[in-house]
């Protein structure tokens, strides 16, 4: 058996910037909205980040594009490929984030190879230097996360853990324990992408997550529109919205269109 004992416990936790912001807003009765955007996609992507902040995002997920994004569906694959073709690198994306100067806490979402290639310690430091609050690494599960987490913790970067519909209860608890920022509840079995129907699994996993943790629980993957977001927020603390936004950006929405879409979701969640 390769399952390791949880390598962290609540006593050593320092609450980071993202988690604090989310907890605070949740406490204020607000439903949390974290849009995802691919870093380096188009010349105006930093403006889009700013527009998302202005539209009421509670946190912003910025993807650092990777050549082999296995957790992503066609839309984000396309966005990653375009961004890479346009010359995006981890460094350029971090520089963009730094230049955005938004108050909204930013989490980078990327794949672990880009971190491993630079080195855990160095990349943690670079994230911190760019003002990144947190990191979401969908191919770095609990058992493999320790070396990175040690460096990230030390650098003050929150590592968001993901929970899936297939995660057993016992493991869910350990994920929540190790998680920082929020607990990312993967809403369905599948990769990122819009779905016309809200998956039943989204509510189920949200419920299960809420039972084991006090961390903010946000559901992502497959959350495509306002009504789905509202339905989920009956149970969860908030949602991550990726493909639905990125598709609009790929279609040329620009900062205005992106801000408008997130503004609508914001309104739906607030009403």
């Amino acid at each position, binding site marked *: *058996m390769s399952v390791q004992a949880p390598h962290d416990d609540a006593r050593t936790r320092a609450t980071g910037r993202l988690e604090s912001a989310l907890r605070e807003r949740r406490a204020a009765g607000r439903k949390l909205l974290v849009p995802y955007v691919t870093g380096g996609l188009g010349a105006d992507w930093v403006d889009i980040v700013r527009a998302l902040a202005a539209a009421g995002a509670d946190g912003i997920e910025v993807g650092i594009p990777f050549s082999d994004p296995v957790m992503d569906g066609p839309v984000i694959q*396309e966005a990653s490929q375009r961004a890479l073709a346009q010359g995006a690198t981890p460094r350029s994306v971090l520089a963009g984030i730094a230049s955005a100067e938004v108050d909204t806490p930013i989490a980078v979402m990327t794949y672990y190879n880009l971190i491993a290639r630079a080195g855990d310690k160095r990349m943690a430091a670079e994230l911190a230097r760019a003002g990144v609050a947190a990191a979401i690494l969908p191919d770095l599960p*609990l058992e493999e996360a320790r070396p990175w987490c040690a460096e990230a913790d030390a650098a003050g970067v929150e590592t968001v853990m993901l929970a899936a519909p*297939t995660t057993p209860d016992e493991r869910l608890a350990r994920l929540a324990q190790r998680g920082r920022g929020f607990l990312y509840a993967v809403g369905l079995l599948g990769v990122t992408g819009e779905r016309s129907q809200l998956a039943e699994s989204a509510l189920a996993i949200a419920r299960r997550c809420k039972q084991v943790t006090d961390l903010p629980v946000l559901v992502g993957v497959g959350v495509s529109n306002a009504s789905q977001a509202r339905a989920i927020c009956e149970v969860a603390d908030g949602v991550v919205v990726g493909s639905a936004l990125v598709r609009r950006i790929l279609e040329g929405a620009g900062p205005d269109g992106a801000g408008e879409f997130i503004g609508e979701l914001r309104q739906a969640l607030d009403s």
Partner: protein
Amino acid sequence: MVAAPSPMGAPDASGRFGSFGGRFVPESLVPACMELETAFSEAWADAAFRARLASLLASYAGRPTPITECPRLSAELGVEVVLKREDLTHTGSHKINNVLGQALLAERMGKRRLIAETGAGQHGVATATAAAYFGMECAVFMGEVDVERQALNVFRMELLGATVYPVRSGSRTLKDAVNEALRDWVASVETTHYCIGSVMGPHPYPYLVRQLQRVVGDEAREQYRERSGGRDPDVIVACVGGGSNAAGTFAGFADTAARLVGVEAAGGSAVGHGVPGIVHGMRSLFLQDEEGQVLEAESISAGLDYPGIGPEHAHLAELGRATYEAVGDDEVLAAFQVLARTEGILPALEPAHALAWVIRAARDGTLAPGTKVLLTMSGRGDKDVAQVKEMLA
């Protein structure tokens, strides 16, 4: 170079061979990988499972495959070459050993759908074959570029009842087919077994596939000893794409004094030009740029067109227990022709890499005259004849 005791044992609890391996997969897949790990270790310890697999390999896949002496080639090279004939198995390569084992395992786990990635189509055809035999559903992911290049293999898989999905993302080749298979699996993991085609991917795959392929090495060792009055070969050579035929072969000889040589395509040499990275669920050596973006491999042989290598090979290379060599396309084409002419055997382009190294090493003295070489003929060349014809035209 002193071989560590049993350098090809089981990986550690985290699925690592030395510092390589592990299980870097989305959370959705972690329980499935654990389930597979448990199922495999139970099955492997279960005499009934092993017997059923052995019987399937014998009566369906045509095992044991013989070892074949190469009198005319040996005379030409001055070293004594013996081939382990995986080209004689059903579907024409060692891939069948792996897929039959995994299909049997899937059945045991109650999964009735198989998915697989494929490059040129060998592993896809093998998986579709196993699925047909077991009456399972089968989906094969194949880069769009490969779908076009290998239309006949696509048709073969369809005849076998599989659905082939052209993969349009990334470089639209094998690497992207793996990504797409993983994406399917993320969505289908409750009903589906991902039948990985080489000693790669998240734990337990590298170990599982090596154990399923070690029949190649175990048979060869016994056959070679029987033929040679108990002697082992001096050198064991096999081509390395992901590394399953090499790992299976090496496993049979790791505890002997034989030198182990893996041969990569010069344009896909993960040991030669790769650096450690985490891709496709494992920590291993990969061709990648400064930032960590994975590069495409380039080879005439679709089966070696993979930018990484199985983690156990990275470990064996680090230990020095095996060495890894790279050969270029021209040497491979020449080796292909030499074997056809001298022994009447058309090798697949993949094992022609292994032979190309033997030819070079025999000529430049790396292999002393009379050296006894065992080479795994991992597949037959029929699939490559059209391509070779074009290249020689």
